[in-house]
């Protein structure tokens, strides 16, 4: 690494873009605003690409100036490039670029164009700072910054009261997590006397593995709190579904592809700490596994297209966190990347659908859109196949190692594998439910519109229409990536080169497992496991097909065709009903009544809401102390004095 990479340029260029648009955007044309914003991201992407190819074996460090130089505390502005941060920077700028391009079309005629792109560029600045930072404090700067931008962008539609509330909810919930991070950071400093990765990570690697909870475990658990807040893990996930009130490109960029994965990144970044704190690692796996399963079940019963995708995101990040928890860090980052592709695609596709239907988000009111939105349809299908983890789509290659590691890793176990595989089945079910309801079946919207029930928006000309090319091109590129993005990591088992793991290996060298794999395994077992997971995914799709696509069509066709087949159809119908009552209905009931309404709405969301209300009520009582009466105030002073005196004198004697 001889050359000077000028890493600082990567985040700074979007910052300049944000400043430009913030200062002059109001007076510029949409075209100028868009070209500045997109151009900034494109330059940043190219720079990230250059850095990626210049990457050597050893981590590359660029230090700019000393930020805090107190006698007892030092921190620098420095950036750190290793395979992990290089990959992250590429994902952030690459996906960011595509989403920016898409937003050029999506956000036109929305109002506040320049503001939107200003915030988006600002977001990229903070996200890249987070990813490239060379120490935990600078990472915290990015960490808080992305939270702030997320808040600004969720509340973008400032006229909507609920959007503003959602923004606040997101900000405050994640802040609770942020303070876990902050305290972890202080503890890291007091343990290692430094915040630089280049010093902390080797130091941590040289410490013995903590068999009982020690400082490392505490640090790791606090970091987990921070990660749970930002990455919407149980129990701090409540803000993410509400965050969907923001514009769709925001959901795609911040609440699916990049910011919400920061929690995974920080755990992977601190992998050297985590492998020396197995109890914390177990908690990570548990949180991830539970979140994955729990959020997926909720996804089944949602009807808002973006909320389904939100729960799906929570669930998929749960997967990544679980992968970290079983010390499969490179698998986690692999899934992070493929997820960024297909989830961004799903969101953008959903945005395209919403755009075409003039703002409609309820999937029960959609249907038959494949005829109207062919390009969206095909790209969406690829994304669905990818998330359902069918070979050869990218999701398959990234999800499979996680499931396998969950089973064989010394930190894993059959429990995590079961959670994972169940989630995989549910995932493919709900995503195809969404898919079939949206794109297949009858076009309900068109009917509704013509009968005048559905009041169309001005953009909606009765018939749904495909989005302009500037919106569909990013979809197609993302579709290609969702299809092929996984091929870089084809494992040896499938005669691949296992390039991904080899490439990322230097980043996790310090996190090399201190013990050998406890479970010995052979290729045959692995193949069986893989087949099982494929089977489960296919089963999920088939079920969704039967319930949401096949049945209504058959019912319609049967009436017109042979009468003899009718019984069969009825039988089929009957089977469906059995299916329904035996498997789906309980699951639906359980997940709706218990998990969603009971847990999600009442317990967790409710407890946050309740906490907020209680806090406010407490505040009301507190402010009654300020009665405005001077004599009462003097009474408080005397009361306080008496308490102080009795305490002090009581101590003295």
């Amino acid at each position, binding site marked *: 690494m001889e050359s000077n990479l000028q890493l600082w340029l990567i985040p700074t260029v979007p910052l300049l873009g944000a400043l430009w648009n913030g200062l002059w955007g109001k007076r510029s044309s949409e075209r100028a605003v868009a070209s500045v914003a997109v151009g900034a991201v494109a330059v940043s992407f190219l720079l990230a690409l250059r850095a990626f190819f210049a990457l050597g074996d050893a981590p590359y460090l660029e230090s700019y100036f000393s930020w805090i130089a107190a006698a007892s505390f030092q921190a620098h502005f420095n950036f750190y490039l290793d395979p992990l941060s290089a990959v992250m920077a590429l994902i952030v700028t690459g996906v960011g670029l595509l989403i920016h391009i898409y937003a050029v079309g999506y956000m036109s005629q929305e109002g506040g164009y320049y503001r939107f792109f200003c915030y988006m560029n600002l977001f990229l600045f903070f996200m890249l700072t987070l990813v490239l930072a060379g120490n935990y404090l600078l990472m915290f700067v990015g960490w808080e910054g992305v939270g702030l931008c997320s808040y600004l962008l969720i509340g973008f539609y400032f006229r909507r009261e609920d959007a503003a509330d959602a923004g606040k909810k997101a900000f405050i919930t994640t802040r609770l997590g942020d303070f876990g991070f902050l305290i972890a950071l202080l503890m890291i400093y007091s343990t290692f006397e430094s915040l630089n990765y280049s010093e902390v990570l080797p130091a941590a690697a040289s410490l013995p593995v903590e068999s009982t909870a020690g400082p490392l475990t505490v640090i790791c658990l606090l970091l987990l709190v921070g990660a749970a807040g930002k990455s919407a893990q149980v129990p701090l996930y409540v803000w993410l579904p509400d965050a969907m009130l923001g514009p769709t490109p925001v959901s795609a960029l911040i609440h699916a592809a990049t910011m919400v994965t920061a929690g995974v990144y920080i755990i992977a970044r601190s992998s050297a700490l985590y492998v020396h704190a197995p109890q914390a690692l177990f908690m990570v796996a548990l949180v991830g596994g539970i979140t994955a399963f729990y959020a997926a079940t909720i996804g089944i019963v949602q009807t808002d297209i973006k909320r389904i995708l939100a729960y799906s995101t929570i669930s998929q990040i749960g997967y990544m966190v679980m992968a970290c928890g079983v010390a499969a860090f490179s698998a986690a980052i692999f899934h992070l990347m493929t997820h960024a592709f297909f989830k961004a695609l799903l969101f953008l596709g959903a945005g395209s659908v919403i755009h075409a239907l003039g703002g409609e988000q309820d999937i029960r009111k959609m249907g038959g859109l494949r005829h109207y939105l062919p390009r969206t349809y095909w790209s969406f299908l690829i994304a669905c196949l990818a998330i359902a983890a069918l070979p050869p789509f990218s999701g398959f290659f990234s999800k499979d190692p996680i499931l396998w590691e969950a089973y064989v890793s010394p930190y894993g176990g059959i429990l995590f594998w079961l959670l994972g595989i169940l989630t995989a089945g549910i995932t493919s079910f709900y995503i195809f439910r969404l898919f079939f309801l949206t794109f297949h079946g009858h076009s309900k919207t068109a009917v509704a519109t013509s009968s005048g029930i559905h009041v169309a928006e001005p953009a909606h000309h009765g018939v749904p229409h495909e989005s302009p090319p500037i919106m569909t091109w990013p979809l197609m590129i993302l579709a290609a990536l969702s299809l092929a993005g996984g091929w870089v990591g084809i494992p040896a088992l499938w005669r691949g080169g296992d390039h991904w793991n080899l490439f990322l290996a230097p980043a996790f060298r310090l996190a090399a497992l201190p013990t050998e794999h406890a479970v010995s395994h052979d290729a045959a077992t692995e193949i069986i496991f893989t087949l099982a997971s494929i089977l489960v995914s296919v089963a999920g799709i088939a079920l969704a097909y039967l319930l949401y696509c096949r049945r209504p069509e058959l019912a319609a066709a049967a009436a017109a065709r042979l009468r003899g087949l009718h019984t069969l159809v009825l039988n089929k119908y009957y089977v469906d009903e059995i299916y329904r009552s035996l498997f789906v209905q309980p699951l639906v009931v359980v997940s709706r009544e218990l998990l969603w309404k009971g847990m999600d709405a009442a317990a967790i969301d409710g407890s946050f809401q309740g906490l907020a209300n209680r806090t*406010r009520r407490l505040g009301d009582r507190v402010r009654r102390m300020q009665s405005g009466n001077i004599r009462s105030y003097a009474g408080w002073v005397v009361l306080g004095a008496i308490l102080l005196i009795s305490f002090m004198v009581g101590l003295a004697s």
Partner: protein
Amino acid sequence: MPAWNLTAILPEAILTVVGIVVMLLGSFSSQNQDRGCRTVTLMGLAGATVAVVAQRQHQGAFFDGMFLVDPFGIFFHLLFFLIAALVVLSSADYLQAEKLTVGEFYTLLLFGTVGMGLMASANDLILSFIGLEISSLASYVLVGFRRGVASSSESALKYFLLGSFATAFFLYGIALLFGATGSTRLTQIQEILRNVSGRATAGAAGTVLLPTPSTLSSLAQGPEQFPTALLGLAASLLFVGLAFKVSAAPFQVWTPDVYQGAPTPVTAFLSTGPKAAAFAVFLRVFLVGLEQTADQWSALLWVSAALSMFIGNLAALWQSNMKRLLAYSSIAHAGYMLVAFTAHSVDGTSAVLFYLVAYAVMNLGAFLVVTHLGNRGERYVEMDDYAGLGYRSPLLAACLTIFLLSLIGIPLTGGFLGKFYVFRSALQADLIGLTILSVVNSAIAAYYYLRVMVAMYMNAPERPVPLEPVSSSVGVTLFICAGGTLWLGVFPQSILRLAENAAQWLLGAG
């Protein structure tokens, strides 16, 4: 050494003379009177700053050991002069709009600053007391400066009555400390208490002799003769007086009412200047004079810090008046500083000092926006009046956003680093419970600051509030405050080093 030394009090002397000059200048009615007064005041502050900087070469104890020129005092002097200058700059338009007499306003401000300077440098409790009274009396008058307005004079009354009530406690504390140790000189008290506790193994309570002159010099009778309960009583009375002045719970009751009714620039001044001065006395009295009884008073600080944070933040959730909101937030911020104080270490003390600077800059800025938007007669100080400000006056809104973000504690602002040092020093002192409480509090606090931001950027105004054009003095002040807030967040070294130096000096480690 001569009994008196002008260099030691040169800054105070300059400000006094300038104050008198401004007072005289103000009495001549002329066209450019306001401008002249302002220029002279600012020049005086600049001169005093130069004098303070020059004083770094002449450190030591003066006036029979009553007045210390040390890094701690110098740090506070610089802070006070900065605050005073910013208040002078930001009050120009306000005074004009409210038709208030400029000369007297600036005179009182300068005299108040002299009092604050004395407080920061005083090594003798009597001098601290007089300094406190000077700054308090000036504040009382400034609070009631809009004498035709009922709320202003009511504020002055509340501040005055409760302030002198608390001062009486403080004075009683001084008297009893004098009784317990035979001295009011802080360094002497420290010496005496060190000797006592050096011999103490088990300080027996019960009937004990007051130290007589002979015991003071030799302390021959041993520590069991030492009036520990009297010392505790004195410490708690001093605590009452000082906690009142920094508006720490449970002695914060006066703060919201006084801050709300006072003229806004005065509120800005009160929440930064006299508060910082009271902190200076607080730190000197407890970290120097009563250093040996730290295990007793640190528990008091613990409770007071926690209560201040909770009371300030919880009550602020309900406020719709910006001045009252910032008043409650000021209570909470006093709480954060007390957290670092509780740590009782060099780090903690320097965290307090740094926080004071950061808080001064951001809070003065926030109040300046409130002043400017309030318009004539402070008509528009409700949160609803801020609706849509983000579109109507983007720069003003952007500045307020910076201040609010800093008050929340977002990185790259001074407020963040301030909180960061506070939490760090608290953790290092193993105050884990208190750290968690302060973390919870800063999460609560985000809520009400965000409400203001939501109002500015996300609510449409129901009735657009008239916006006066930003004058050059307001613009310059805003720029200094906003720039300073960011500067402290990105390049904190210089201030931090000063703060650390001061803290080390105070705790005798440097």
